[in-house]
């Protein structure tokens, strides 16, 4: 395979799976830096085995999960917890669900990333931190009217990928 073709192929793998894998890993380990390191290592591992692995998506998810669990074992060993406690972190059912969710979560993350800075700031203060419109307005020295507009804008952008957001906000 030409070097260019392999690079293009792996670029595509990254575009499809990098963010979903990071979000998937985040369910196991709530540390952004560690998560990125793990996902990067798994892509490298796949690169090294690329001629002998046929199911790339499955391989990536499985190796990310395994490294996360290893990481957890390491951390928890320091606090002398039994190995059986670690099993509580993993169940096939919840893992499968997390894999499915990782794609939607990646989409939502990307949508939030794409918001203009101010709009995102206001959106997060409201939906993540639970501030009331008046409180946000006060904190940022803007009008409540502006706050309301910005949040509508954010919702529209997120909603174009995800109608579901509306249910959460107004439910």
């Amino acid at each position: 395979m030409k070097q260019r073709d392999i690079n293009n192929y792996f670029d595509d793998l990254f575009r499809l799976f990098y963010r979903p894998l990071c979000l998937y890993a985040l369910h196991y380990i709530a540390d952004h830096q560690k998560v990125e390191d793990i996902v990067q290592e798994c892509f490298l591992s796949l690169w090294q085995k690329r001629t002998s692995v046929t199911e790339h998506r499955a391989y990536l998810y499985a190796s990310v999960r395994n490294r996360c669990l290893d990481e957890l074992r390491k951390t928890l060993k320091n606090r002398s917890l039994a190995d059986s406690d670690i099993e509580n972190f993993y169940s096939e059912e919840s893992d499968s669900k997390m894999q499915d969710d990782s794609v939607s979560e990646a989409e939502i993350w990307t949508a939030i990333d794409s918001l203009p800075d101010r709009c995102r700031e206001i959106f997060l203060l409201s939906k993540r931190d639970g501030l009331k419109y008046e409180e946000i307005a006060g904190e940022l020295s803007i009008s409540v009217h502006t706050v309301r507009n910005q949040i509508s804008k954010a919702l529209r952008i997120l909603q174009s990928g995800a109608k579901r957001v509306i249910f959460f906000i107004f439910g």
Partner: protein
Amino acid sequence: MKEKEENNLRFVLDHYRKGVFNTSEAISAFRRRTSGEKRSPRAVRLYAALTAAVVAAAVVLTVFFSITPLFRTMETLTADAVMTVCLPDSTFVTLSPNSSISYIKGKPFTLRRNVEITGKAYFSVARDTEHPFEVMAGSSYIKVLGTRFHVDGCDDSTDLHVLSGKVFFAESADSEDSEGLFLTKGMSARHTAGSGKPVFSKSEVLNPAAWATGVFEYDSAPLEDVLSELSHFYGKNFILVSSGSLQKKNLTGRFFADDMESVIFAIEEALDVKIEVK
């Protein structure tokens, strides 16, 4: 449905941070780490051999031989998974799981290039006309002059398929030319223990070394045979559903094994056929 998406959003909001999980940056970092390899197949395989911790648990036994006054150290490597080994003369050998290779360690090897293998191996032999490369596979003997070939040896018989170059295939190193076969590119032969001379065989599989090289090469291969080989390789059942014409189709081309869907898609497009996977 509602609840699941609410949960997804909640999770993202709880963990969201600007500037992390940047895919483009990740790709750049990845490229930097993988660009150390030159694209010559040798460098790739050497890299594969060095990642033994990840790829395979190689069991290394060192056996000490003494031959006349000299000490010789033999190296024996057994593959746990597909593993590529670099020999002291720069020959690359890819071993399939549970296969093994034995050879003299170090510089002495370059003077007498002799290896013993069990199981299945793919060789990319460094050219050295002064020192022919010899392989003992079970009860068979193969002499090589700088080439690529594939050996599959089990207890009673050895199958040999040559991808390029020229090979002499016989029962032992002492065999006369007439007691063995000379094989060149595309030729296959089988030697059964105790039977004397090997016999030519039609390679049952078009790409016997695909497991090692990661490549399928076809030159006017009947589509039926191609699908049969791909089915076996991927462990699926590929069936021809419909074709544009009733004529028997032949396939020519080079496909990379790691992406099954692309291979099937490319074949469908090239030959105007529809292939179903079971």
